[in-house]
C-alpha cells in the first residue's frame, strides 16, 4: 500500500497538470454540447463559441427519438460480443504466453497481423460468406464477426499482460498440483481484472461505435445505433446541432461502461501473488 503522506507541493503541480489536460479534453465536448443546444439557424462558424440563445433540449429530444429504436440492437450486439471476445482473448493470451508449444510465437504473429486488415477491403467476401452461413442480415452474424475480428487485439493485450506474471507463480501452482485449466481458473483469472477492464473498454467502445460492418451486415430492422446516428446527419444539408446532440447521447452507454469498470483498476494484485 502506498504510504500515506502529507500533500506536497509536487501534488499541487500534479493536480494542476491534470486539470490543464482536462480542459483540453473537454473543450471539444463543450463545443458539441452547446452546438447541440442551438437551433439550426444559430449553427455558424463565426458564432460557434457563443452560448445558445435559449436553453432548449429539442435537438436532444429529436435525436433521442430517432436513436432509441436502435438502442436495443446495439445492446444485444455489444454486450455479448465484448464479453465473449474478451474471454476468448484471455484464453488465447494464456495459452500463447504460458504454454509455449512449438510455433506459439509464429501463431501469435499471424493472429496479430489480423488486426491490420482494413474492414472495407473484406466487405464483399465477408457478405458473401455470411450469406452462405445463413447469418446475413441479423445481429448474431454481426456478433460473430466482431468476436472474430476482435481476437487479434484481445489476444495481444492479454498475452502481454500474462507475460508479466512471474514464472515463480506458475511454478508454485504446478507444485501444488494444478493443471492447465486449474492454473487458468485459480491463478490467471483472479489476476486478470485489469486486463479484462482494458479489453472490455476497448471492445465495447469499438463494437458500439463501429459503422461499416453494422450497416452492411444487417437489415434495416436490425441496424445498431451507429447507423441511426449516421442517418441523423442527412446527406445534403447536415443538421449538426441535432447530429452532435445525438453523438453525445450515443456515447453515454459507453461512458457508463467506463465509469463502472473504472472501479476495477485495483492496485497491487501482483503483490498478493508474490507474498502467497
Amino acid at each position: 500500500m502506498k504510504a500515506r503522506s502529507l500533500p506536497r507541493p509536487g501534488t499541487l503541480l500534479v493536480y494542476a497538470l491534470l486539470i490543464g489536460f482536462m480542459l483540453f479534453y473537454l473543450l471539444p465536448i463543450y463545443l458539441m454540447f452547446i452546438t447541440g443546444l442551438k437551433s439550426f439557424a444559430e449553427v455558424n462558424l463565426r458564432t460557434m463559441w457563443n452560448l445558445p440563445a435559449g436553453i432548449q433540449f429539442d435537438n436532444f429530444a429529436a435525436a433521442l427519438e430517432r436513436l432509441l429504436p436502435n438502442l436495443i440492437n446495439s445492446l444485444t450486439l455489444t454486450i455479448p460480443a465484448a464479453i465473449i471476445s474478451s474471454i476468448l482473448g484471455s484464453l488465447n493470451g494464456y495459452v500463447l504466453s504460458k504454454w509455449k508449444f512449438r510455433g506459439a510465437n509464429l501463431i501469435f504473429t499471424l493472429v496479430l497481423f489480423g488486426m491490420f486488415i482494413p474492414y472495407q477491403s473484406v466487405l464483399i467476401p465477408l457478405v458473401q460468406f455470411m450469406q452462405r452461413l445463413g447469418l446475413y442480415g441479423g445481429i448474431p452474424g454481426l456478433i460473430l464477426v466482431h468476436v472474430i475480428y476482435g481476437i487479434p487485439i484481445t489476444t495481444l493485450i492479454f498475452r502481454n499482460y500474462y507475460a508479466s506474471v512471474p514464472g515463480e507463480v506458475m511454478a508454485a501452482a504446478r507444485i501444488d498440483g494444478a493443471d492447465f485449466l486449474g492454473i487458468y481458473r485459480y491463478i490467471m483469472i483472479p489476476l486478470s481484472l485489469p486486463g479484462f477492464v482494458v479489453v472490455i473498454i476497448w471492445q465495447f467502445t469499438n463494437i458500439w461505435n463501429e459503422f461499416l460492418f453494422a450497416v452492411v451486415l444487417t437489415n434495416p430492422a436490425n441496424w445498431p445505433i451507429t447507423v441511426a446516428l449516421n442517418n441523423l446527419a442527412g446527406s445534403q444539408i447536415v443538421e449538426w446541432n441535432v447530429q452532435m446532440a445525438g453523438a453525445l447521447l450515443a456515447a453515454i452507454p459507453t461512458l457508463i461502461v467506463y465509469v463502472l469498470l473504472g472501479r476495477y483498476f485495483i492496485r497491487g494484485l501482483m503483490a498478493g501473488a508474490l507474498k502467497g
Partner: protein
Amino acid sequence: MKSLKWISLLVLAGMLLAACAPAASPEGEAATGEVEVFSWWTAGGEADGLAAMQEVFSAEYPNLTFVNAAVAGGAGTNARAVLATRLSAGDPPSSWQGHAGQELIGTYVAAGQIEPLNDLYDQNGWLDVMPQTLIPLISQDGNIYSVPVNIHRANVMWYNPAVLEANGATVPATWDEFLTSAETLLANGVTPLAMGEQWTSMHLLETVLLGSLGADGYAGLWDGSTDWAGPEVTAALETFQQVLTYVNSDASTLSWDQAAQLVVDGDAAFTIMGDWADGFFVSLGLTPETDFGWAPAPGTDGLFQFLSDSFVLPVNAKNPEGAIAWLTVAGSKEGQEAFNPIKGSICARTDCDPALFDAYLQSAIADWNTDTVVGSLTHGVVANDAWKSEIDTALGLFLADGDVAAFQSALATACSSSGACQ
C-alpha cells in the same frame, strides 16, 4: 468463483437477448408485400420529401409496406457501398435512388443490374410529360432505365444583393466580368467567390467549362468530339485557375452550406452551387430576392446544367410488383407534386402545378422549359463513376499544385481510360 459465475450469467443473458433479436429477414417478400427502397435521403427536406411521397404511395397501395432503407452519406457514398455489397450477395432492394445518367447507366446497366422500363413509360404515358431532352440521357440503345423524380440545376450563381450594392458590383455575365469585379471586391475586404470542400470545386469546374466552351463544346467533352488536350480546354482551365485565386483561403475546411453561409453573412459576394442552396437559405428564414439573389453562372445564360434523382427497377428485385408500384408513384404527378416542393427541386414532369413552388423554383421551372439542357458532371449525368473518380483525383492534385498543364493532361488521360476518347 463469484466473478466467474457473474460473468457466465452475463454471457448467458446476452445470448438470450441476442436470440430474441430479430433474425435475418426471409427472402421473397411477395407474400408480405414489403417494398424496400434504398436512398440517402435521411434528414431535413430530403427525408420530408420522401415521406410525403411515401404517403401518396401508402394511400394508393395500402397493402404494400414501405421499408425505408436509407443510409446517409454525402452524394450517397455510404449508400452506394452498401448497395455494392448487397448486389454482390445477390440481395438487391426493391428499388434504389441514383442520379439519372451515366452514374446509373455506366455502372448498373453495364453490369446488367437494372431492368429497362419502356413498358412502364408506355403504360403511364410518361413519354408525353417527361422532357424530350431528358429521355436520351437516361437511356441506352433505346431502353429507358430509370424514373426521374426531380430536376436540380447546377449552374446557379447565388449572391447577396446588399453586398453587391455596397461594393458597386453587378452580377457578372461572363467570367471575364467576374474577374474584373473580383479585384474591386477583394480590395474592399469581401471574398469574391465562396467555395467549400473538394467536391464543390468540381462543381465550380463544370460551370466554368460550360461557360467557356458553350453547350456544344461542353457536351462534346463527354462523347469524344471535344479534345480535352485542345486549346479551348486550356483556356477554360486557365480561367478556372484565375477564378480560384479569388476564392476564400479556408475553402477546403468548409462544407457547401458553410460556404453559402458566407454569402448571406456578407463575407462573400458570390457562390456557385446547385439550387438546393435555395432550400438552405429559406430554412434560415431568408427572403428570396431580398436577402439572396440568383443568376445563371457566368457564361451559361440560357443553359440548364441539370441533375436528377431517379429510381430504378433492379434485376431480381425484392417484390417486383411492389417495386413497380413504387416507380409508378415516383413518376406520377401526385407523387412528384408531393415530393418536390418539400425537397426543394422541380418536377421532372412538365405538368406539375407551378403554384406549389417557391419564388426561385418557379423561375427554375420557367428556365427548364426554355433553356438548352446539358448534364452535370459532379452529379453523375455525363460521366460514369470510374471516369468521374479519375477527374476528381486530377482535380485534387491540381488544387494542391496549381499545374494547369499536368491537370489538362491528366484529364485527357481520364477521358481515354474511360473509353469515350481515343
